[in-house]
């Protein structure tokens, strides 16, 4: 597709269950980001992938959160043993360094509700 694609767009899960969120970046983009936005809050950085380099995981809030990026393209964010405070919009973004800078494009997000 032309843009960053995320799935599912909405997910309701029970507390304690594991969830997987998928991100399909723009074709050819080498960088991929995950952010979280809680209700009424700003965007919180989670993790960043750049090519084959080791990911920057400095934003992951706990060891229940993990992410991987297979083949330098699709990424999956996994939240284990979900808690109510995990309810948020999870946004994925991708970018490709160009001569004019690093334009970063976001997907529409995956809305996660933990009940």
């Amino acid at each position, binding site marked *: 597709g032309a843009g960053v694609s995320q799935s599912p767009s909405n997910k309701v899960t029970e507390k304690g269950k594991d969830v997987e969120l998928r991100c399909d970046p723009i074709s050819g983009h080498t960088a991929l980001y995950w952010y979280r936005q809680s209700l009424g809050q*700003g965007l919180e950085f989670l993790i960043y992938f*750049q090519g084959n380099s080791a990911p920057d995981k400095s934003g992951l809030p706990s060891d229940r959160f993990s992410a991987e990026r297979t083949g330098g393209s699709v990424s999956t964010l996994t939240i284990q043993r979900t808690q109510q405070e995990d309810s948020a919009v999870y*946004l994925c973004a991708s970018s490709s360094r160009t001569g*004019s800078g*690093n334009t*970063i494009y976001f997907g529409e997000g995956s809305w996660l509700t933990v009940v």
Partner: protein
Amino acid sequence: SQELEQSPQSLIVQEGKNLTINCTSSKTLYGLYWYKQKYGEGLIFLMMLQKGGEEKSHEKITAKLDEKKQQSSLHITASQPSHAGIYLCGAEGGSARQLTFGSGTQLTVLP
């Protein structure tokens, strides 16, 4: 870590009025991004500024970067209801490739 402060936090204007949103960084700005967010639509990229004094325009939206002041402003001319939404500034800081975002400015345009 870098922090971005946006002002105002919310803004209500009458259609046709001009408005300005500011974004101030606690550290040197290496790249400043403006996004617009509407409910259920994710973040829409507006523009990116890299150089001090740079100014970009798209339709009725103009953004400027004052590198010395570590500040950027977003100006909307003759606002329309379609401009309503949350405007977010994001900055790339030095070696960190991830963006740090401000808390957003919620804009309401009254018809």
